[in-house]
């Protein structure tokens, strides 16, 4: 059964993470995505790492279910092909990495097209023309202030959060614009439109809770305010692995029992014992950062699973801090099917992350087509184009 976006045609002219992720999600949901690449290919094909010199895993993961067409913007014929493909499409996903001005929204004759442009810093303002950069956007939106230590080198979030946040917003805006287009009164159609998202704007939107907290708080406390000045947070190392935990409802007798079971009776003589009892752990704990070493001294005698069990039994919550290796073999991850096998053209299998939605009425197929070779679908797409009005 086709996914929710079956029947929609998408043209992608984008590279790297944000644009390709957007179009990959639309493809996962059932849309037909044609990826237009320059002669040298999407830049992320050449990113690291590489198995046997081939395309990077990131490229393979973000370009599944697409068809690739190679077009050269120095050729008028190829520009004409792109214009025609766009005119036949419902959606364009473009970024500014080398997009020729002839393919700008205002120059196209495609009244029904939802044209989504993804930029670094947004369509207006003094930085409108600056190219997009994950680390530049993370720094400019102060996302890097949630990592590292004051006065030290900025630390980026190691996942491409600015680009994927922008992609998530782009998917929303595209679907909403398609809804408006297809929903409007036939005598006064909304038609297609231009949609703009940016890495910078998306990172700012995702930090909204912080902006509200900074508006006019009754009292200056809470992780939304002091996360700027806290030291790096590594969780709580147990004998084997790190965990994270919160005392949650552990109070009074339960706290005493917790301390006894963890063989931490020595902590009762600690000068900050009262802070430890009341507000001394977890991401929201007022004194969590300064008291983490106290807990780690106790946890050093136990394996993480033991600490998790003891904390939970006393009314707190605790979770393992998975790295990708432990995550990838966790039973819950397996139960929800978060990792899927994608068969590649050479017969090998690549493991990738499943789309995040379950549609009971229009299920998404978990049988994925691999990312295309550069220009792999040239003749197929161009002959289809000839057949369409």
């Amino acid at each position: 059964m086709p996914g929710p976006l079956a029947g929609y045609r998408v043209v992608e002219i984008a590279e790297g993470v944000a644009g390709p992720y957007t179009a990959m999600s639309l493809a996962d949901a059932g849309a037909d995505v044609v990826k237009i690449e320059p002669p040298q290919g999407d830049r992320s094909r050449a990113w690291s790492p590489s198995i046997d010199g081939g395309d990077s895993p990131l490229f393979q993961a973000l370009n599944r279910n697409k068809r690739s067409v190679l077009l050269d913007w120095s050729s008028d014929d190829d520009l004409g092909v792109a214009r025609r493909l766009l005119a036949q499409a419902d959606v364009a996903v473009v970024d500014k990495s080398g997009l020729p001005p002839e393919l700008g929204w205002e120059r196209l004759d495609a009244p029904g097209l939802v044209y989504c442009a993804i930029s670094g810093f947004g369509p207006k303002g003094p930085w409108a023309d600056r190219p997009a950069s994950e680390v530049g956007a993370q720094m400019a939106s102060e996302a890097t202030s949630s990592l590292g230590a004051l006065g030290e080198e900025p630390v980026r979030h190691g996942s491409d959060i600015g680009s994927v946040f922008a992609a998530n917003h782009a998917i929303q805006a595209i679907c909403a614009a398609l809804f408006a287009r297809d929903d409007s009164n036939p005598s006064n159609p909304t038609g297609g439109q231009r949609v703009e998202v940016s890495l910078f704007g998306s990172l700012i939107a995702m930090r909204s809770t912080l902006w509200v907290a900074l508006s006019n708080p009754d009292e200056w406390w809470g992780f939304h305010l002091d996360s700027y000045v806290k030291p790096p947070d590594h969780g709580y190392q147990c004998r084997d692995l790190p965990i994270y935990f919160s005392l949650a409802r552990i109070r009074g007798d339960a706290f005493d029992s917790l301390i006894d079971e963890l063989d931490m009776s020595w902590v009762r003589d600690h000068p900050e014992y009262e802070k430890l009892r009341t507000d001394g752990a977890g991401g929201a704990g007022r004194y969590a950062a300064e008291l983490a070493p106290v807990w780690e001294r106790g946890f050093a005698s136990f394996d993480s699973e033991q600490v998790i069990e003891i904390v939970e039994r006393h009314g707190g919550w605790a979770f393992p801090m998975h790295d990708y290796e432990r995550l990838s073999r966790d039973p819950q991850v397996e139960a929800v099917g978060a990792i899927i096998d994608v068969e590649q053209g050479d017969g090998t299998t690549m493991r990738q992350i499943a789309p995040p939605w379950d549609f009971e009425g229009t299920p998404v197929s978990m049988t994925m087509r691999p990312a295309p070779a550069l220009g792999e679908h040239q003749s197929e797409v161009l002959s289809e184009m000839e057949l369409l009005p």
Partner: protein
Amino acid sequence: MPGPLDGVRVFDLTLWMVGPWASTQLGALGADVIHIEQPSVDPRTLGAGVPPTINGTSIGYMTWNQNKRGLFLDLKSPADRQTAYELLQTCDVFLINMRPGAAERMGVGYEQVKAVNPDIIYTAITGWGEVGPMRDKPGADVQAQYFTGFWSVSGAEGGRPEVYRHMAQIDATTGNVAAQAVLMGLLARKRTGKGQRIHVGMLRAGMALQSGRLAEYLSTAELHQPQGSAAFATAPDQAFQCQWGDWIGVSVTSEDEWQRFAAVMRESEAEVDGIDHLATDPRWGSNRDRVARRSELAAMLQAGFLQRPRHYWMLRLSAAGIPCGYPISFETLQHHAQALENAYLREVETSGWGKVWTGGAPWELSRTPARWFGACLPGEHTGEILDELAVRRASADEPVAVIGD
């Protein structure tokens, strides 16, 4: 022009952050979002009680319930449940984030809602999924950050990985993914004519957010080690310290950019061995060569960046089309033309907490613009919404059927 979802109505039975964030997005896109709270709700528990407060209410509530109308309904009371069913007949979307089974106990499981309104796009959001050993565990942003490895790929070079100290990114990502799912469900309904049930969970949404890094791990079985500001897949792509001690972030992600970057470094005439012929030096011949010798390259470039002020580098790199940026803090951002002209940050009026700063709509739609307004008080629009239902009842051709549980 009204927003793209003008005419769409959402029954918003959500709490804490992940569900409310999804409906905040739908409200910004023009849907009429009706946010339900229990009449007996303790104001101190709104927004999960996340500190700080403004006028005694958690800033969580007022961030996560923007662009909505507030309605009090007690779904345990038969009369209010009847009102809920009547309201649901006018809705396109039902949104809930509670543990599996909670909706059914309140009389608003999918089968129950579908009996009232078969066209409904019913969207349930969970923490860990609807199956598996963890399905009944509570799920919140912090747990999902630790569990999905979101913490494991960041940190100072050579140090232990560290947690991102802003506890909202997986919640908001899941909310965004849920809003996508609702929109896709609405589009599918145009084609099929049918409503459906949709599920989204934080675990899979949090993993999808990391699709690129996870693909790298799953292909190589090598864990990423923290490397400060530097990217894993590309080089040079990191922060450098400039002459006055401040930092600039620079990204070179294609060979074309590398050539232009090499020209900027050569023209800077920085006195560092080899910096004048980066483009022809075989050590840096391809991105993969540069990533393999990242530390060596970074040390050399760092020595160059230290010889000119940041403003110099911003001018020269921007002119050459090399992506760059630098750290900006909130006090500056709230007056910054780039944030304000795009309305990425804005100040909105609220009903109970004065003016607050907030992120705005992250999209610009040229023909059906998004909107943004401050959070409603719990139940603020109860009278207005009940009046609308009364008008509908009075004008109905047939009496509105009383619906059993």
